[in-house]
Structures are given as C-alpha cells and as structure tokens.
C-alpha cells in the first residue's frame, strides 16, 4: 500500500484488531458463501429435476390411462377427452385438429414441436415464468413391439413457481445462516485479537519503562508461541542492556575515584612544595638573574599545579555527589563588588548593578562562579568587560559580556566540558581548564544554570541564572 493511500485510510481501520476482524469476517463470509452456494446449487438442481420428473410421470400416466379408450383416428371429441384427462393447461393435436385449454399454441417453441415430431419420445423444455412445457407424441405399438407415431401429440404446461419458491426459501435460509455466522466470527476475531494484543501492549509498556531507564523491566513469558519467543528475546535484550549500563557505570565511577585519589595524594606533597617555593621566592633577590628566572618559573608552575589539584578535588566532590551548598543571606551587589575588588578587577569591569539585591545562596560558590566568568572574560575576551546584575522575585541573573571575538561555532555548547580549550594550539593557559565546568556544576547545585552565547555587536556572553532564595540542594 502506498504512503499516499495510507493517509486516506482512517486510523481505526489500521489497527491489528480491525484487521483481524476483517480477515475473520472475510474468511467466514467466503466459506459460508461457498458452502451455501454449493448446497444451494445441488439442492436446486435436484428440486427442479424432481419436479420435472414428477410432472413427466404424471403426464405419461394420465395419457397412458386413456389411450386404450381413444377412438382412432380421433375426432374433436376424442381430443377433448384426452386433453381433459391430462389436465389443464394442456393441448392435444391430431393433424389439423386441435383441442386446447388454457394453453396458447404460441407458447410451444418450434424447437420443442420439432423434437416431439422427430424423436418419438417424451420431451420437455423450461421456459421463463418459470414454467415447464412437456410435449409428447402418442405412439401406436404393433403386435411385434415396434412403435410408431399415431399422429396425436399432447402438450402440457406445468408451473414451476412452487419450485422457485422452495429454492428462494432455501437461499434465504442459507443467507440467514451465513449472517448468523458473522457475529460468531467477530467474537472469535476479538478473542484472537485480545490474545495477540495483550502481549503486544505489555511489550509496549515494558519498552517505555526501559526508555525511562527502568532497566530491571522484564516481561512475563507465557506459552511457547512466537509472541512468547519475542518476549524472551526482549528480556534477553533488557538484561544485556542492564549489564552493559552497569559495567559502564562501574568503569566511570572507577575512573572518577582514581582522579579523586590521585588529587588527594598529590595535595600533601604539593603543600610542602608550596611552602618550599615560597621560601625560595623570598630568596630570589639574592639570586643571579638566571637562577631567579628559573626560581620564579618554578614558583609560578607550582601555584598553577596547586590550583589544578584543588579544582580536580572540587570536581571529584561534584562527581561523588559530596558537594553541598551552605545557603545564607547575601547582599549580591556587595558580594559581586567584593569579589571583583579582592581580585583587583574593579577597574577592569563595568559593573551594572543599579540596586542592592538580597538573596539566599551559598556565598562562596557564588563568588567562585562570578570570579570564573569575569576572569574568563578578561583572559579570553577584549575590554570593556561588562557585568550586569538583575533580579526578580524568583530569580537572580548575572550577565557577563566582553567585546572580544566571541564564541565561534559549536563552542557555546562545548565550553563547559572539562579541559576544553578553545585554541588547540594554546595548550597551556593560565586556567586549569576546569573553571567553567566547576562554575556550571555550582550553578546546577543551586538549581540554576549558565548559558553561553554571543552578544550581537559585542563578544562572548555568559548568563548565570540562580534561584533567588535557594534551599539546600545536594549535587548529583
């Protein structure tokens, strides 16, 4: 069936139930029709044959009963007697003489007349009506047994309407029987459809549950038919899927634990190392220029390493679901100003915060996110960097825009990935590569999010949205 034609078919006609019912009805009707037709054909043939035979026997008997008493050659009175004995409507003829009662001579076909004359036997013909015309010559038998036409011919008309009525009644009863079979067929089809559709419905439900991550979903396998086979296959698939997902989760959690363990292991020696390089830093004044440059590089790299490890530990906490917010009352304009001032960015950023905003959220995490967004804009974008702070009753919005080249292509979605670097060539940047990932996790922890995009006519644009009055939310 073509797709175009499919669109025309009503939806309810396409269901398995309807198709089964139609198929059942079709088969039933066909079967009943063929059976009825066969029985009707044989019945009607035998009915007609029997009626004809009866009429013929009757006519032969009636004629035979009076022949011995007929004067030969017959006169009109004799023909009248013969015709009367046969019963109306009938006609008896002898050469030019004719006696008729209720029978038009035109009714007898030339064909029949010829057969009566030539064949020397009783013949008959069914004509429209339905009627039966019986024609017969009356023979003379000689003493030696040879028979010859006497010249008398008898034609009889018999009505076949009763037979027709009998056949009609038979046809009606056949049709009625077929009609009675229909509800039965529909009932059977409904039962069969239910038997097929119930497993299908169960399978659909199971597939839906599987789609919403209920991987323990299994079907009950009933019977040994194809549907049971399908249910078994479905269960096998679900089990395999569950196994695979469990394996993947285990591997992922192993990897995360490894990162957490490594970070923790690195922190203690790094603390010592930091103390050492700080001492070294104090001593640089006394060093030769070469040694000083090396010492300062060591100090710088050590600090970077320390920050990376701290970021990794923070990320691990998020991954382990151990991160918690500590909501407190915060005045956001002050918090943002403090954040910028502590990092010496007050002059580099245009702060657009027309009024103080009080909110309830985790001050430290808010500070981390704002610092990260602003720091990112200062590092990768071009001035002026603008920070816009707004709020309504339910939501706080912090928008950071710069005037750099903006985020090219698909970067807007990938910028929150861990260790993602926009410029592949610049593998070593000041950041750890985890800043935006941590910022996004922090926003999510508050029940908010960060959107990255470009501001037309300016550069990159990051929008942080947080619920204004946060309840304590646990990270995933």
């Amino acid at each position, binding site marked *: *069936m073509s797709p175009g034609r499919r669109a025309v*078919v009503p939806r309810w006609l396409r269901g398995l139930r309807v198709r089964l019912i139609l198929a059942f009805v079709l088969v039933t009707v066909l079967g009943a029709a063929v059976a009825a037709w066969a029985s009707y054909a044989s019945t*009607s043939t035998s009915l007609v044959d029997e009626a004809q035979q009866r009429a013929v026997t009757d006519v032969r008997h009636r004629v035979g009963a009076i*022949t011995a008493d007929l004067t030969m050659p017959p006169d009109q009175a004799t023909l009248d007697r013969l015709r009367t004995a046969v019963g109306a409507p009938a006609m008896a003829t002898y050469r030019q003489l004719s006696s008729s009662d209720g029978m038009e001579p035109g009714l007898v076909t030339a064909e029949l007349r010829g057969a009566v004359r030539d064949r020397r036997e009783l013949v008959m013909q*069914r004509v429209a009506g*339905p009627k039966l015309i019986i024609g017969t010559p009356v*023979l*003379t038998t000689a003493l*030696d047994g040879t028979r010859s036409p006497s010249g008398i011919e008898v034609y009889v008309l018999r009505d076949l309407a009763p037979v*027709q009525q009998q056949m009609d009644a038979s046809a009606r009863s056949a049709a009625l029987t077929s009609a009675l079979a229909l509800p039965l067929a529909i009932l059977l089809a409904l039962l069969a459809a239910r038997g097929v559709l119930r497993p299908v419905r169960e399978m659909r439900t199971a597939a839906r549950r599987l789609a919403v991550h209920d991987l323990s979903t299994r079907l009950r396998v009933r019977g040994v038919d194809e549907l049971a086979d399908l249910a078994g296959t479905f269960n096998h698939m679900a089990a395999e899927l569950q196994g695979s997902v469990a394996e993947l989760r285990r591997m992922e959690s192993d990897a995360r634990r490894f990162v957490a363990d490594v970070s923790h292991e690195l922190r203690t020696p790094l603390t010592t190392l930091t103390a050492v390089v700080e001492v070294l830093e104090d001593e640089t004044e006394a060093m030769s220029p070469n040694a000083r440059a090396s010492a300062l590089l060591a100090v710088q790299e050590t600090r970077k390493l320390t920050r990376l490890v701290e970021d990794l530990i923070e990320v691990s906490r998020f991954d382990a679901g151990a991160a918690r917010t500590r909501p407190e009352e915060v005045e956001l304009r002050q918090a943002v100003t403090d954040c910028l001032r502590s990092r010496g960015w007050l002059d580099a950023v245009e702060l657009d915060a027309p009024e103080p905003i009080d909110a309830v959220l985790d001050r430290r995490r808010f500070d981390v996110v704002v610092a990260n967004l602003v720091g990112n804009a200062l590092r990768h974008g071009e001035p002026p960097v603008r920070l816009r702070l707004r709020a309504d009753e339910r939501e706080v919005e912090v928008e950071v825009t710069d005037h750099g080249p903006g985020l090219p292509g698909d970067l807007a979605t990938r910028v929150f990935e861990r260790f993602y670097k926009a410029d592949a060539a610049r593998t070593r940047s000041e950041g750890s590569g985890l800043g935006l990932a941590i910022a996004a996790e922090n926003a999510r922890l508050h029940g908010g999010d960060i959107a990255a995009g470009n501001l037309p006519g300016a550069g990159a644009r990051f929008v942080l949205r947080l619920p204004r009055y946060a309840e304590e939310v646990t990270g995933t």
Partner: protein
Amino acid sequence: MIRRSAVLLGTFGLLMATLTACGVEPSGVLHGGEAPTGVSPTTTLYYLGDQGNLVPDVRRTERLGTVTDALALLMRSSQNTERGLHSAFNTRSADGHSPQVTESDELITVVLPLASYEIGSLGVDQFVCTALGVHRQAGRPADAKVVVTLTTGERLGPRTCPVLR
C-alpha cells in the same frame, strides 16, 4: 485496506448475485423418457386355422380397448366363418358372463366363465394370445405371462403365446 474492502464488497455482491439470480433457468429441449402409447384403431383376436394353428384376426374396433374388452369380444364371436376360422371352446353355458381379468405388468390373470370340458388347450392359447396382444399394444412389458382359471377349478399357466415373439 481499501483493496480489502473492495474484495469484501465484491464477495458480498457475488454471494447476493448467486443467491438471487440463480433460479429456475429456461432450458433447451430435454429428454423426458418414453412416450405414452396404447392408441390403436384395431384389436387383434386369435382364432384357429384349418391345421389347428393360431391365426390373428384384426378387427376394426376404432380403439384398442382393454384386455377384458378383447376377451369378451372373442367369446362373443367364437366363430369367424368369413375367413374359415374357428375356436376351440364352446360358449353356450357361459351365456352372457364375461371373463374377469386382473392385469399387472408381469402377469395377467384371466378367470374364464368356462368349464374344462368346454375349452381345449388350443382354446386357452386363443385367450392367452389375445390377452398378451392387447397387453403389448397397450405399451406394457412384452414378456408378461398369463394364468387362466376355469370354472371347474383348473389353474393353467403361467403361459406365453406361442405365436407372439
């Protein structure tokens, strides 16, 4: 599905057409068996010739008549002097009594109002042949037999006619 509906409708239509159109149809000329027989302008009686042989004598009776009619006619006109034929029975004591005939396809039973001393064996043959001739001309089986009973209690036959084959 549309095609399926069409098939369904077609089947219904075919069924209805079959049931309604299929009635008693007109036909050609059909064979109906043997034609009735039994008309005859004459009746044949049997007499005896000079040598005692059975001789048919055709009478223009204008109808075949029954076996009883023929036997009664034979009794009434026992002598056919015109052709020099005679009979081997004597009807003086019968005096107005007619033979009683019971006729079935295979067997004709004749009760003659004659005693055994009034009829000879050839006379019985005259009755047997006359009865069988009418029987045959009436269209009944040619191999029928005749039993003749006389008033003196003799039961002769079943017999066939020696000159009718």
